[in-house]
């Protein structure tokens, strides 16, 4: 048997948008197969089809040489496919063995739980994986990597032959990643096939045997890891034209627009000071828990600062509510668009006009004509692809949704724009458009802040980069001195400048 899994010509659309366009995917026994691609390339859709969560519109799936229909998650599971999601499905208030047997508890003939038997089996599986872990320990008391291990152990308990791991290392420390890699090698030698989804190419090259790259719902390439390199893979992922566009345009900086002095908000950040000029693009980056999102939530009035001062054009302002920020000319394009920025029951038009709504008031009522005129002007200016103003916002692609969110703030003439993870969940083409837009806005004199954990994104656009570590600014780098390595040193707190000069 050459392949344990063959997916042929898989096609899937949502709301008439084709997300997968005839994708082929093959998996060999006992291999670690990297599934790569940018956000929105179709990786998760393909894996959800394999996990039985979605049913493909077209295409065939052969599992262990037999045609199968994966009509539900339980079908996939019973056929030996186990999907370990990025957000782990582990109940932290239960014990390790309780999690492993969740939904499949062993009971005796009176219906009582067979705790000892479950513990014994859990212990067996864990020790087979070379892990010493008390099955009776509470999951909430374990490190993040152990949660991953509990999920994997559960998969093995269910006799999974194919394990899908979606970004398994995002929340793990280096040491924990090493443990996980060792575990994957053990699994592999026992004949389990692993589909490994990750953005971290270094990991992929250290652990995977073969790769498949998706781009815009199509197969962009597949082959042996040994025959390729990071550059080639990157090119497959982004399409080579987009990868090396230079977005940065030097422009004159104007007067200081926003200055923040000694701003603090325990426990998120302490004594943060910086100045932002007209036409300037500042980058803020760091690792998880650096406090940059909370910092700007404070500046935007979503969160209360405990101390410090914010001034706009040299005048101190009190910002206790986002409405105060709006009045001070501050706009905020938050991260996690779905949770923080989009009103999913509303149309494109209604989302776009929400912030500026009172401007369209005539005799207390909303003037539909002015509201629509605003829509058409931004649709053209930002090149928003939407069928008509009344299209539900959720039917737009991530990039177009992001433009709608931006339009909300342009319409109220915000001249300070804060972008938190602006290209999260956006496909390559739209990413490029957003970068161009940000650069254009800066050229018009808007002052811009970009918060991102993707250092390349920061390097592409920013004039200066602030690096934060556990709530403090540890470094401030001019564009000319900034590179990934320097930034990383400040981000992990190895290097710090004390009181930052800029």
């Amino acid at each position, binding site marked *: 048997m050459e392949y344990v899994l063959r997916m042929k010509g898989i096609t899937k659309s949502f709301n*008439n948008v084709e997300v997968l366009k005839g994708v082929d995917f093959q998996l060999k026994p006992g291999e670690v197969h990297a599934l790569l691609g940018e956000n929105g390339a179709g990786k998760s859709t393909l894996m959800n089809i394999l996990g039985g969560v979605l049913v493909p*519109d077209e295409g065939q799936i052969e599992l262990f040489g037999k045609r199968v229909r994966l009509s539900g998650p339980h079908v996939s599971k019973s056929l030996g496919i186990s999907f370990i999601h990025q957000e782990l499905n582990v109940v932290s208030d239960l014990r390790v063995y309780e999690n492993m047997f969740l939904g499949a508890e062993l009971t005796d003939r009176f219906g009582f739980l067979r705790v000892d038997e479950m513990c014994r089996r859990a212990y067996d599986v864990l020790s087979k994986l070379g892990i010493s872990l008390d099955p009776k320990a509470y999951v909430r008391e374990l490190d993040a990597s152990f949660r991953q291990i509990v999920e994997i152990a559960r998969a093995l308990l269910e006799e999974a032959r194919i394990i899908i791991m979606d970004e398994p290392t995002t929340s793990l420390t280096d040491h924990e990643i090493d443990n996980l890699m060792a575990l994957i090698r053990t699994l592999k030698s026992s004949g389990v096939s692993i589909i490994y989804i990750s953005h971290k190419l270094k990991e992929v090259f250290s652990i995977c045997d073969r790769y498949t790259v998706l781009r815009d719902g199509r197969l962009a390439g597949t082959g042996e890891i040994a025959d390729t390199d990071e550059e080639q893979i990157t090119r497959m992922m982004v399409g080579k034209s987009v990868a090396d566009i230079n977005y940065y345009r030097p422009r004159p900086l104007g007067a200081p627009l926003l200055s923040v002095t000694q701003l603090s908000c325990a426990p998120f950040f302490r004594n943060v000071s910086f100045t932002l000029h007209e036409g300037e693009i500042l980058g803020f980056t760091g690792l998880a828990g650096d406090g940059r999102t909370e910092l700007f939530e404070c500046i*935007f009035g*979503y969160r209360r600062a405990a101390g410090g001062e914010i001034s706009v054009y040299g005048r101190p302002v009190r910002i206790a*509510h*986002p*409405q105060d*920020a*709006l009045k001070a000319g501050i706009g*905020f394009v*938050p991260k996690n668009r779905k*949770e*923080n*920025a*989009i*009103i*999913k*029951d*509303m149309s494109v038009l*209604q989302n776009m006009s*929400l*912030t500026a*709504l*009172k401007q369209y*008031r005539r005799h*207390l*009522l*909303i003037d539909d004509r002015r509201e629509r005129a605003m829509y058409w002007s931004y649709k053209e200016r930002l090149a928003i692809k939407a069928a008509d103003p009344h299209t539900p916002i959720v039917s737009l692609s991530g990039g177009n949704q992001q433009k709608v969110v931006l339009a*909300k703030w342009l319409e*109220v003439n915000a001249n300070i724009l804060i972008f938190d993870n602006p290209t999260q969940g956006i496909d390559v083409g739209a990413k490029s458009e957003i970068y161009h837009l940000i650069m254009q806005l800066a050229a018009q004199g808007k002052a811009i802040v970009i918060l991102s954990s993707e250092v390349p994104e920061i390097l592409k656009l920013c004039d200066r980069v602030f690096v934060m570590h556990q709530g403090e600014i540890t470094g401030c780098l001019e564009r000319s001195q900034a590179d990934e390595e320097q930034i990383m040193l400040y981000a992990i707190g190895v290097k710090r400048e004390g009181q930052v000069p800029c």
Partner: protein
Amino acid sequence: MLNQTERNVRQQVGARASWLWSEYSVIVAFLVIVIVAALADGNFLSYTNLTNILRQVSIIGIISLGMTVVMLSGGIDLSVGAVLAFVGGIALLALNSSQSVTLALLAALACGALIGFLNGVMVSKGKIASFIATLGVMAAARSLILYIANGGSISGEVEAYTLIANGEIGGISYPIILFLAVTLLVYVLMHKTPFGRYVYAIGSNEKAALLSAIRVDRVKIGVYTLCSSFVALAAVIESSRLNSISSASSGLAYELDAIAAVIIGGTRMTGGRGKVLGTFFGVLILGVLNNMMNLLNVSPYLQGLVKGLIIIIAVLLQKKE
């Protein structure tokens, strides 16, 4: 390729049909029930009977419209029934002591608005779940009016006051006119003003609404104040209709009828989605059903069963979208 186009067309037709259904299902259901009622009893379509139905539903109707606004914002107001009894009692006491209908009206509206404001502050500033906050107010308001009336009734002593519920213009009684006027008011408020848009936004995604610089707290306070003010209006009609308020039984379980009408009207329990006209027809559906069962001599003890089934069926049908 052809296959693809065909599928797209079919999807679009399907989407269109389900959109139509989700927009107008309440009206369709209402028409069906009216036709059935008309066929079952010849008297049903008579002018007297139809205005009778409208007059009977007007009190619950006005409350339901307030409840619609609260539920669209993602909350719920369980206090409406008890507040109706409390405000009705206060209105009659004010009436008796001042002998002025105007003062009684003002006292009722001020009292209602104040209670609503309190609900709104607890929910928005106090971050208490609306279910809990209004449950507390429900118990408190009922207890207060029982105490004031010493468990009995409060009766009006000014004849003119009874005209509010029993008078009419051009053959249409005031409660009907008030119900239609409030429907129009809430329709315009919810679908044509920034306030209405904010309520929908908050009900759909409160965090995104706040991050869009909407004064979420103020809007919420406004929502509860509005609802209780409508309850005060309903309380005036109710107390005027019988010229008395029973501290123990007036407004009892009105919150359930109001919530039922809102749900039948297609408003989502969690907020953000629903229509004012939906509630209007939801109220009418409940009214027509009650009327039909009376005409057909169905035991009044069984009417709750029918109402319960209708609520469940309505929600099941709406689930389809």
